[in-house]
C-alpha cells in the first residue's frame, strides 16, 4: 500500500451559468497522504468547496460538470466508477462535514436516528448493535450524556453540539478521508477550539486523513501538515506547513499574511491586495493574480506561470521563482512592501467623552399563552456601562448571543433600553422621543455586518446615500446633494458613476464602502460598527479597516466596534470591553486586556483564538460546555459554570467591579479582596 491515499490530477469542474461558462476548478492537482491533514486555503469564490464536491462526485448537475482529471483513492480512479460504486465510497471511504451544522441535520429526526442511519448503512448493523455503536460515537465526539442526547432533536442542541453530531455521522462509516468544509466558520472561537481539538484527537486515534477547507490562516496553522493555497480556481502554492508559514513564496500568500490585522500593526496601514477576486467566467491568459499583484510585470499578463520549486521544497506557480527568468525580471520588484506608517491625527481632541452609557439594561419579555402573559425575560443586556471619547475606538468583544449587537441598537435607540442611561454629548437619549430624537439621529450611525442585506435592493446607490440626508434635512438643495453623493463615493474609494447602479452590481467589499458612505452622508460623530468585516474576505477586510482608520483620522470619528475577531480589536481599538452573557466582565485599554487578561473568560477567549505564529501560542484553556441561555442566567457570576477557577462564592453572588489599574477593571472574585 502506498503512502498516498488520495491523488487528484488535472481536475477541472465547469459550470454553465447565465453569465457564461465558469471554470470553478481549473487543472487542480494534489496528493493527500495517509493520516495527514491537508489544508486547502483560499478566499470565497476561489473553488475550494467545488474541489471537495468534485472529489465526492457531488457536483450539482446538470449545471456543473467535471470536465477532466482523475481522482485516485488508493489507486482506484473514482471517475470511472458508476454512481452505485460511488455510493460505496461516500461515507465509507470519504466522509464530509459542512460549514453550517444548523442546516445539515434533519430537524424532524432524532440525533440517534440520524447517526443510526449511517451506521446501519455502512456497518450493516441493526437494533441494539447499531444503538450501541451510535452511543459510542456520541461519546467519542465528546457529547456528554449520550443516552439522553440520543433521543433529542437537532433544535435542542447548540451549534457546537450539532457540529459534533455531524462529525459523529461522518465517523460512522470509519472513513479513510474526512473532508471538512469550513467546519468551524459558523462557530464561536471557544467552540471552534473545542471542535478543532476534537478533530485532532480523532485523527490521532483513527489515523484518517483530513482535507481541511478554510479561509482562516490561524486554523490552518494549528491543524495542517500540508497547505495548498487556491486562487481563482487554481492551486498557486503548496508545501509543508512549517515552510509555508515561515516563508510564503507566492506574492498572493505573502499579501494575505501582510493584510491580517494585528496588534503589532497598530498605527500603520494594512497592506492591501487591491481589487477583488476575478470572476471565473472570463478567460485568463497570463497569471490570474497579475492584476492585483505588485510584483507583476509584462510577462505575468501574457503567459501563465508553470510550477516552480523553491528552496524550502514549496511548489509555487509564479514567474518570480523561474530561475530562467531571474535575469529578465525588472529590478526592485520586491513584493513584500513594508507596511506604510499611517499619519496619525494625534490626540488633539479634547478628552471629554462623547458617549456615556451607564448601567444599561435590555430585557425582552417572553410571552406565552392566550393572553400573552409575560412568563420571563431574556436578559440580553444586563447592566453595561461604557464610555467613548471623541475620536476614540472602543471595541466590544464577546461570543455570539452575549448581547453585543443589542447594546449597539440600544445606544441608537433602535431598541429602547429597559433601564439605564445613554448620554450623548450630555443629552439623555433614552428620554428623547419622536421629533427630538430624529433631530439627533445624524450624530450617531451604524454600519452592519452583512453588506448584502443592509441596502434596499430596489433602490439605486444615489437614492440610498441621499436617504439619510433627506430624512434628516441635512442638505435641502437637490443639486448640492447630488454633488455630495459623488464626493462621498470618492471619499470611500468608489467611482462617481457608481451612483446610478443598484446594490447587487457590487461586490461585498464595495457594498460595505457604500454603507460607509451612506453613514458619512449625515456627518455622524459616532459610528457603531457591528462586525463590519466578518462577512468579507481577508484581503477585502484589510481595505475596509484601512478606510475606517483613515476616516477616523480625517474626521475625528468615534467608533464602537462590535466584533468577535480579537486581531481586529488589537489593530483598531483603543479600549476593549469583554462581554459575557449580557454583562461586561473586563474593561481596559487594548494593552491591558490583550496582554494581561485577568478575567478567566478573557483568558480562555484569547487562548482559543488560532494564532499564526505557533511560538506565541498560548496554552488553550478549554472551556467546557456552551454559553448558557440568557433567559435563565446562572446564579452568581454568570461564568462560574464554565470557569476553571470557580469558587463556592462564585455561585452565590455576582462579583463587584475591581479596579486593577486606572484603566483596567474586571468583575471577578479572584481579584476581589472582599471574597473571603
Amino acid at each position, binding site marked *: 500500500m502506498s503512502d498516498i491515499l488520495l491523488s487528484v490530477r488535472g481536475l477541472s469542474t465547469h459550470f454553465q451559468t447565465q453569465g457564461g461558462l465558469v471554470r470553478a476548478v481549473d487543472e487542480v492537482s494534489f496528493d493527500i497522504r495517509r493520516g495527514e491533514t491537508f489544508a486547502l486555503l483560499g478566499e470565497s469564490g476561489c473553488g475550494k468547496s467545488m474541489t471537495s464536491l468534485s472529489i465526492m462526485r457531488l457536483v450539482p448537475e446538470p449545471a456543473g460538470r467535471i470536465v477532466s482529471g482523475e481522482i485516485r483513492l488508493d489507486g482506484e480512479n473514482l471517475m470511472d466508477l458508476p454512481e452505485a460504486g460511488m455510493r460505496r465510497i461516500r461515507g465509507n471511504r470519504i466522509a464530509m462535514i459542512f460549514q453550517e451544522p444548523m442546516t445539515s441535520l434533519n430537524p424532524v429526526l432524532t440525533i440517534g436516528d440520524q447517526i443510526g442511519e449511517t451506521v446501519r448503512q455502512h456497518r450493516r448493523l441493526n437494533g441494539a448493535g447499531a444503538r450501541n455503536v451510535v452511543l459510542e460515537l456520541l461519546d467519542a465526539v465528546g457529547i456528554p450524556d449520550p443516552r439522553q442526547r440520543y433521543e433529542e432533536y437537532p433544535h435542542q442542541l447548540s451549534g457546537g453540539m450539532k457540529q459534533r453530531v455531524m462529525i459523529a455521522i461522518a465517523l460512522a462509516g470509519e472513513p479513510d478521508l474526512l473532508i471538512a468544509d469550513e467546519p468551524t466558520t459558523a462557530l464561536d472561537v471557544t467552540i471552534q477550539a473545542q471542535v478543532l481539538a476534537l478533530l485532532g484527537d480523532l485523527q490521532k486515534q483513527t489515523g484518517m486523513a483530513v482535507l481541511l477547507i478554510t479561509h482562516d490562516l490561524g486554523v490552518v496553522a494549528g491543524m495542517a501538515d500540508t497547505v495548498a493555497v487556491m486562487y481563482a480556481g487554481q492551486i498557486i502554492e503548496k508545501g509543508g506547513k512549517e515552510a509555508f508559514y515561515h516563508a510564503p513564496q507566492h506574492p498572493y500568500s505573502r499579501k494575505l499574511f501582510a493584510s491580517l490585522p494585528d496588534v503589532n500593526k497598530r498605527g500603520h496601514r494594512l497592506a492591501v491586495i487591491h481589487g477583488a477576486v476575478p470572476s471565473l467566467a472570463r478567460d485568463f491568459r497570463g497569471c490570474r493574480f497579475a492584476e492585483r499583484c505588485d510584483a507583476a510585470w509584462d510577462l505575468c499578463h501574457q503567459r501563465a506561470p508553470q510550477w516552480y520549486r523553491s528552496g524550502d521544497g514549496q511548489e509555487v506557480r509564479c514567474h518570480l521563482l523561474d530561475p530562467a527568468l531571474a535575469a529578465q525580471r525588472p529590478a526592485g520588484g520586491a513584493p513584500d512592501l513594508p507596511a506604510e506608517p499611517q499619519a496619525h491625527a494625534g490626540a488633539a481632541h479634547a478628552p471629554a467623552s462623547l458617549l456615556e452609557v451607564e448601567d444599561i439594561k435590555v430585557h425582552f419579555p417572553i410571552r406565552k399563552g392566550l393572553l400573552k402573559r409575560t412568563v420571563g425575560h431574556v436578559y440580553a443586556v444586563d447592566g453595561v456601562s461604557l464610555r467613548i471619547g471623541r475620536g476614540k475606538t472602543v471595541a466590544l468583544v464577546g461570543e455570539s448571543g452575549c448581547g453585543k449587537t443589542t447594546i449597539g*441598537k440600544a445606544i*441608537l435607540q*433602535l431598541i429602547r433600553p429597559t433601564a439605564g442611561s445613554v448620554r450623548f454629548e450630555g443629552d439623555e437619549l433614552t428620554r428623547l422621543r419622536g421629533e427630538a*430624537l*430624529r*433631530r439627533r*439621529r*445624524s450624530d450617531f*450611525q*451604524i454600519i*452592519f*455586518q*452583512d453588506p448584502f*442585506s*443592509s*441596502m*434596499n*435592493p*430596489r*433602490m439605486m446607490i444615489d437614492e440610498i446615500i441621499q*436617504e*439619510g440626508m433627506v*430624512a*434628516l434635512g441635512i442638505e435641502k438643495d437637490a443639486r448640492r446633494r447630488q454633488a455630495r453623493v459623488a464626493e462621498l463615493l470618492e471619499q470611500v474609494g468608489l467611482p462617481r458613476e457608481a451612483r446610478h447602479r*443598484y446594490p447587487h452590481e457590487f461586490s461585498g467589499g464595495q457594498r460595505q464602502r457604500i*454603507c460607509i458612505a*451612506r453613514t458619512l452622508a*449625515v456627518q455622524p460623530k459616532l459610528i457603531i460598527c457591528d462586525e463590519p468585516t466578518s462577512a468579507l474576505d481577508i484581503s477585502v477586510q484589510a481595505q475596509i479597516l484601512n478606510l475606517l482608520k483613515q476616516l477616523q483620522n480625517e474626521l475625528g470619528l468615534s467608533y464602537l466596534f462590535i466584533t468577535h475577531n480579537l486581531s481586529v480589536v488589537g489593530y483598531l481599538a483603543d479600549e476593549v470591553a469583554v462581554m459575557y452573557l449580557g454583562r461586561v466582565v473586563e474593561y481596559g485599554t487594548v494593552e491591558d486586556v490583550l496582554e494581561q487578561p485577568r478575567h478567566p473568560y478573557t483568558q480562555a477567549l484569547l487562548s482559543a483564538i488560532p494564532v499564526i505564529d505557533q511560538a506565541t501560542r498560548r496554552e488553550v484553556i478549554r472551556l467546557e460546555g456552551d454559553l448558557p441561555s440568557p433567559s435563565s442566567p446562572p446564579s452568581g457570576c454568570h461564568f462560574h459554570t464554565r470557569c476553571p477557577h470557580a469558587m463556592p462564592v462564585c455561585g452565590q453572588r455576582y462579583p463587584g467591579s475591581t479596579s486593577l489599574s486606572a484603566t483596567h477593571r474586571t468583575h471577578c472574585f479572584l481579584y476581589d479582596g472582599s471574597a473571603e
Partner: protein
Amino acid sequence: MLMEGMAYFSSVKPVLLKTDALIFMLLAVIIAFGAYARGKAYLRAPWRKVFSSRTGMVAAVVIVFYGTVALLDSIHMREPLENKGHDGETFYSVEVISLLDLMLGPLKTQVEKTYSAPFATHLYAKETVELPDGSSARLYPRLEYGGAHLEDPQRDKGRDILLRSLSGAGAGLLAWVALGALFIWGMARRARASFSVTLKQILGGRTAIPWHMMLYTAGVFLVLIAVIASLAGHYHIFGTDKVGNDVLYQAIKSIRTALVIGTLTTLVMLPFALLFGIMAGYLRGWVDDVIQYLYTTLNSIPGILLIASAILMLQVYIDTHPDLFETDAARADMRLLFLCIILGVTSWTGLCRLLRGETMKMRAAEFVQAASAFGVRHSRIMSRHLLPNVMHIVLITVVLDFSGLVLAEAILSYVGVGVDPSMHSWGNMINGARLEMARDPMVWWSLLAAFVFMFILVLAANLFSDAVRDAFDPRTLSR
C-alpha cells in the same frame, strides 16, 4: 360607409356604466405601470423573463383576445328612437348596447322561437303546424334564421357548412398573413434589418421573445374567428336557448362579466391587503393585534353567506329605489360592481396574511434598520422600503387569484347570489342548464358553450400566472 358610421356614432348617446369607468381606469393603471417598469432595471428583468416564456406568451395572446372582447363590450351607448318628442327632443332606447353588440349584429337579433341544437335547421321541439293544404300536423318546424337559406337542409347542409368554413378559414388565413407581414415589417424597421432576415429570425424562434409562438396562436384565433364569423350569420353554432337566443352570443357577452369580476375584485382587495398587511407586519403591537383580529373574524364567517346576505340586501335596495337607475343595464351593472366589492372585501385576508409575514421578515432586515437609524419616517419606510420588496408576492397572488375569481362568479351565479339574472354570465348559463340537463331530450349546448369559453380563459390565466410566478418568485431566481 365611413360617413355612415360617423353619422351613426354622432346620433347615439354614449353611456358610461360604473364598471366601464373602472375598467378603463384599470387599463390606464396597467399602461402607467408598464411605462414605470421600463425605467426600473429590477422590474424589467423579471418581466423580460415572463415575456421569454413560451407557454406564458401563448396564454398572454389568448388573454389579450378575451380582453379585447371585454373592452369592446365595455363601450356602451343608447340608440336614438325613430319617433321624436313634440319639441324635437330625441328619445333614446332604454336598451343599452355595446360596440360588441353592433359588431355581432345578427347574432343578437336572430332570435328563434325556442331551443335548437347547434347547426340545426329545425327546432328542437315538435309543434303543431298548419300545412298549406289546411290540415295541421305535429312536426319539427324549420328555423326562422338557422339554415333558412337552404332549399333542402337534408341534402345541402353539410356541403354548405364545409364551403362556408373553408372560405372563412381562407379569409382568416389571409388576414393573418397580412397582419403578420405588417408586424414583421414593423419589427424589421425598428431593428433596422431587412424584412427577410427578420422573418427568418422570428419564424426560426431566434428572438428573445417567442414571437413565432405568439404569431401562431394569433393565427389559430384569427382563423377560428373568421370561420365562426362566416357561419354565424346563417347558423346557430352553439344552438339557441329556451327563448331562442343564440348561445354563442351569450357566451361571448359573458366574457366581460368574467373579466370584470376577475380584475375589479383585485382592485378592491389590493388597498386593504397592502395597507393592512404591511402595517400589521411593520408596526406590530396593537395595530397588528387589531388587524389580525379583523381578518381572523372575517375569515371565520362563511364567505358565501356573507356574499349572499350582502347581495340580497342590495337587491332589496335596488328594487325599492327604481328611480336611481336610468336603465336595466345600470341596475345590473350596480349589482355586478357590488359583487366585486363584496368579493374583494372577503378575499383580501389571504394576501394580507402573506404580506404581514413577509413584512415581519423584512422589517428585521438591516436596510430597514438602517433607514430607521437615519430617522426615516414610518410612512416612507413602508412605501419605499417594504412595498417594493413585497411586490412580487402581490403580483403572483393577484394573477393566481384571477382564475379563482372567474370560477367563483360562476359558482355564485349558479347558487343565485351572483350577477343579475338579466346579465349574461357563464354562471347564469350554467344555472339555466341545470333544468335543461334534466329534461328529455337533453339540452346540452348551453353548458358546453359556457364550459369551453370558461375553460380556455382559466387555462390561459393559470399558464400565464405560472410564468409570472417563475419569473418573480425569489426562490426560483437563483436557478
